[in-house]
């Protein structure tokens, strides 16, 4: 099939030509690359990619099609997609459609046939930058200009864009509006939604929690009023610093109940305890990043997606034990509070996509909650090295639109 021309223009003037797929539209955003070789559907639907145009370093995309199950939210959250070789005819027993069709349905533009390796090297060397992806125009000057005029990621409070507007519960098959009967009596985790990935909710529920998700602007006091046994500060897109409401909530809940921060949630905790965050040159996005637990020397192969990080040197001295570091660049990847039941990791223990090496974090959180409430969570035995990768992903069907 002969496709129309499409173009990706970067703010520094470099343009990449290719063929259009997905919707006939135009978008701007921060252009980032992800090195995971599987999981494009999960990545595109991950709310943390809000505001970003995603390029995949793996060149063959769409091979196994798309299905109704592998969503991390109720839609696609990235702004657009850049590929080297889009597959027209997918093959997989779970496939219900093509990647092209999905992007078209969800109104996202895609460009294929791009020298994505050249693009990746450009972003690696010059840093992530703004871009404009168009399946309507190939006027380079005009698109570069649009890229330059688009907002920078720094200072953007994107959580407001992706958060749910009404609270919901997470049930066996996903989003439900009433408390699932099956979970009654289980310890409650409240998750303020800054762009939460559904697999975090699946993992919490699999761990034995009752899971309630509340809008991102819910205050700390409001959260505590729900009598949670623990709070999970979710992942989410963009810069943590402008999210003053979330930082305030993190400050409040972390003093009172066991609190677990993932990715953006980790950065919020850092900020709540007085540290500073900063932007990485080109971020960590992929499913092969080694993280070393400094306490044990154990290495986890992790799923990562962050453009900002907590500057370890700015954390108040002695308050946190800095437990996890990136094997690649030595940046802080995880920490545990020395006196409060608070822990957080910069990467994605729920993976999806990516290895299951880090599920121990959910158990560690459950242990904090158990200590707090004086009864085990989920009745599961203590985690062991041998079983750390053994947990299957909870299968879940996508429900209809959440509230």
């Amino acid at each position: 099939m002969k496709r129309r021309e499409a173009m990706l223009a970067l703010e520094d003037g470099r343009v990449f030509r290719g063929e259009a797929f997905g919707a006939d539209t135009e978008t701007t955003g921060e252009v980032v690359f992800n090195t995971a070789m599987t999981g494009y559907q999960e990545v595109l639907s991950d709310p943390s990619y809000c505001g970003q145009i995603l390029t995949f370093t793996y060149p063959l995309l769409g091979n196994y099609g798309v299905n109704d199950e592998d969503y991390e939210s109720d839609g696609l959250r990235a702004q657009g997609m850049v590929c080297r070789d889009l597959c027209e005819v997918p093959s997989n027993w779970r496939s219900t459609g093509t990647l092209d069709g999905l992007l078209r349905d969800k109104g996202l533009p895609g460009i294929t046939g791009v020298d994505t390796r050249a693009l990746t090297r450009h972003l690696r060397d010059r840093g992530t930058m703004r871009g404009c992806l168009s399946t309507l125009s190939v006027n380079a000057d005009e698109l570069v200009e649009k890229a330059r005029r688009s907002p920078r990621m720094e200072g953007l409070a994107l959580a407001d864009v992706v958060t749910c507007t009404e609270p919901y519960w997470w049930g066996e098959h996903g989003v439900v509006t009433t408390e699932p009967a099956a979970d009654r009596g289980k310890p409650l985790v409240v998750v303020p939604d800054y762009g939460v990935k559904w697999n975090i909710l699946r993992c919490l529920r699999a761990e034995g929690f009752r899971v309630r998700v509340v809008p991102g602007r819910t205050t700390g006091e409001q959260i505590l009023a729900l009598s949670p046994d623990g709070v999970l500060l979710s992942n989410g897109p963009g810069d943590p610093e402008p999210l003053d409401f979330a930082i305030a909530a993190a400050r409040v809940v972390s003093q009172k109940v066991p609190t677990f921060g993932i990715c953006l949630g980790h950065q919020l905790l850092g900020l709540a305890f007085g540290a500073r965050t900063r932007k990485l040159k080109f971020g960590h996005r992929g499913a092969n990043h080694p993280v070393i637990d400094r306490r044990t020397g154990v290495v986890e192969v992790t799923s990562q997606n962050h453009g900002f990080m907590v500057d370890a040197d700015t954390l108040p001295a002695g308050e946190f034990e800095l437990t996890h570091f990136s094997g690649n660049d030595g940046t802080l990847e995880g920490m545990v509070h020395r006196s409060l039941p608070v822990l957080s990791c910069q990467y994605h223990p729920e993976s999806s996509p990516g290895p299951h090496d880090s599920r121990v974090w959910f158990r560690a959180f459950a242990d904090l909650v158990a200590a707090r409430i004086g009864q085990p969570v989920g009745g599961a035995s203590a985690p062991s090295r041998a079983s750390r990768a053994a947990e299957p992903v909870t299968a879940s069907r996508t429900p209809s639109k959440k509230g």
Partner: protein
Amino acid sequence: MPKRTDIRKILVLGAGPIVIGQACEFDYSGTQGCRSLRALGYEVVLLNSNPATIMTDPEFADRTYVEPLIPEIAERIIAKERPDALLPTLGGQTALNLAVSLAKSGVLERYGVKLIGASLEAIETAEDRDLFKKAMERAGMRLPKSGYATTVADAVALGEQLGYPLVIRSSFTLGGQGSGLVHDRRHLREAARVGIAASPNGSILIEECLLGWKEYELEVMRDGHDNVVIVCSIENFDPMGVHTGDSITVAPAQTLTDRCYQIMRDASLRIIREIRIEAGGCNIQFAVHPRTGEMIVIEMNPRVSRSSALASKATGFPIAKISAMLAVGLTLDEIPNDITRKTPACFEPSLDYCVVKIPRWAFEKFRFTDRRLGTRMKSVGEVMAIGRTFPEALLKGWRALESNGGVLPDAVADHEREAVQHAVREPSPDRLRDLFRLLAGGDTPESLSAITGIDPWYLHQMTRITSLDRELRGATWDDATVRHAKRMGFSDRQLALRFGLAETEVRRRRIAAGIVPVMKAVDTCGAEFQAETPYFYSTYEEECEVPEATRPRVLILGSGPNRIGQGLEFDYCCVQAALELKSRGYDVLIANSNPETVSTDYDVSNRLYFEPLTAEDVLNIVDREKPIGVVVQLGGQTPLKLAKALHEAGVPLLGTSFDGLDLAENRSRWRDLVTELGLKQPDSRIAATREETLAMAEQLGWPVLVRPSYVLGGRGMRIVYERSELEDWLAREALISADEPVLLDKFLEGALEVDVDAVADGETVMVGAVMEHIEEAGVHSGDSTCVIPPFTLGDSTVAEIRAITTRLARALGVRGLMNVQYAVRMGDIYVLEANPRASRTVPFVSKAVGIPLARLAARVMVGERLADIRPAETDPRMISVKKPVLPFSRFPGEDALLGPEMKSTGEVMGRDLDFGRALAKAHLGAGDALPLEGNVLLSVRDDDKRSITFMAKKLVELGYGLVATRGTARFLSRNGIPVREVYKVHEGRPHVADLIDNGEIQLVINTPLGRASEYDEQAIRERAVAMSVPVVTTLAGAQVTVAGLEALRRGPLEVTSLQEAL
């Protein structure tokens, strides 16, 4: 954890001779292992019987034993060297089996040797189907339903219970030997009989057939700290039912969602932990149901493997090197990633390209065997290709095979369609070609998927190629279309065909239009980090990553996929030359398409190009790199065949000039040269028609050696003794024309054959060694057992051979290596052929005489003079025997007879102070140990009967019993030699073949009568091969074998390392 300090000296086991299922990938892994252990400060003792390997070059270990890989010899070495540890995981199944035997017999304990890399328990759990099954149950994994049988009757009973089709596997064998797929009771009986015989413990596994399931492999590594990483996922194009070595495979997995892939990854982590691989790597194979996603474990290998070599090349993650480092206690996070140098090895490589591996078979050499592919590996080599899309990688792989002219096959014609559709149902070496033909002819991916079980994804991707090719038919040149085709992976040759242009013209127009490839790096990380180690492939995109030139560049062309007649020996030469030139300040570039080799280790060269070895692909590299010259003389026929195109494109060849190469290659120029030099050569003719061939044969007088004009490894070559035989041969080798004539040589019956390897710089000529063949002339030199120094030739003959070699080298203007073959009969020396290039024997000679010939050649090629280098010519005390290893047991129905067509896959070397013991070691190394006692079957042609009298007496003196069929038996009896007479096959039972089957014969000496009365002989040889009884088919071979038997009975064999005085 830092490296272990309780270990100082490590014994590393190699894999022995190249055989089907165990090839030079283990030289790659062993070489890496030895290098990294020495770099860590350990003393390395190496045992490997294969002289062609790079790892056995004396510089790669502290002590190198080119001795048989058997427990007795290993024990001698352990007693002598007293190593602290034994590392068996780099040497394939051979090394693993040897380690198990040494551990079980208590040798390791007795000498305090620790097994590292994999524990005995781990090896046994992975290898023993029953223990493995239990372990997998504990890990929560399902295996195919199965059961064991030790008798044919049990096998049938079990088979009926499980239901057909069934897979038969024999325990503890390599490359799936003794395994097969059966559809009915009759075939089950046959397979059970063979499998039980092939298994060291006499048992077979019969299991549920997963035909049509998708097949995957994961390469897994675990360190002593329980950190586990998956290096690579590999998806098979061919569904379950074809041995992975015979499957087209693709990396990374293409059709798995992340969810399914992670389930497989989790399973792999559980499995490597359950099997308790404490510090090393393993390969795990899975089957996945194409419609339900159900996953089953097929097997795991607790060692590096062919797949791990492929995975290393596919990802840039050096599995063998890291395995060796883990084995001595380092952990993954302590080892830097070589390619980025900044990030640690405890990560999982991310690819930004697609890798396709395609096997290469040698059925043209084994015409009488079953060509169908199954669970028993039959391929002899493979190519790997890298592209940014699947079609690009597939087409690069297709032309890298060097067996299809680099063009797509024609669409299937209507009248053939049904036959081809029928053919693709079963896996065969032709299936990829047939699929291309059917898709080009309009068959749909869905219909072909339904009959082949191949995932429709692959077939859809193939239709991208066939539809574009259809569009190109009748099209005229258009830059946009050409760019599109080049991005799809089309060769210039394919475009030339479609546009009706010469290939050179396509190249010219393409370059003029700016349609040239860029070189992209393989960097393990999808460009996330800057790559330091340069490993490149070409593709048609925007950005080229080749760095600026700083030093003079030399491009060495490798030898492409392994095949019979061209393999490891040539890679050895390329690697030696690369290392030598690198150390002398050149930027060495290597181009090769073979993932099994050492030359494609990115450590060997300054820049590695993983590319097909075609004129187009090589010229693309030359255009980018602008080397001072290209080396074509080290990689065998593959690069040599490119010499013309490179020369015509104005690319300088390093070493012997194109004219020199042509002088040796061109029959008439060569004949004239030999005549001019006043040397003898067998009378010869060139015939362009069938009639001419017959007439010329009569003129020459029988017997005549005939061959097609362009041959590799003597393909199609035959010695014919009479007219009818020649007629048969002509009928089979139908291709005769003025362009493809038949070459006829007067065959020198009863002559001795001699091989010489030399290095020359145009003036000075240094003879490496004169090798005498044990078999008389007529057996292909690659299949001959040969000896250094010559054992029957007189000193004056040897001196004359050296003198002739010198004259030939000067006349051809040789700069670099040269090999000359001679026949010696009644004091006359005949020149058979001279090849101004590396030969198969260069590594053997280098090891036997202690002179690195390929390194000297490399220095000469860049302009140094031998007179300045002045290497010492040595006169070694040790006698070295090179013995071929033949693959007949893989190819039932094939006659195990040696002839002018090369059939061996590999070789071993036996070294000792006396000839008999060196020969006995060669036999031990080759796996057909000479028997210390028992019965010898003698069956010789009338001409030879007189000559065997002495030999027969000797055998009786040594205590062997003699068995013979009527003619030979009566002849021996008449000469007073005790012998048991047995029936020929048609005379009654028990006949001679029954005796072999019953294990009553330990050695067969059978010289063939010629083509006419062969039934018995073929039956004898076939049974002997099946029962692993050594067979000697020449009189000369028989005589030295008796010398070997005599030597063996004199007492235990001693071992000597290469580093000890020669």
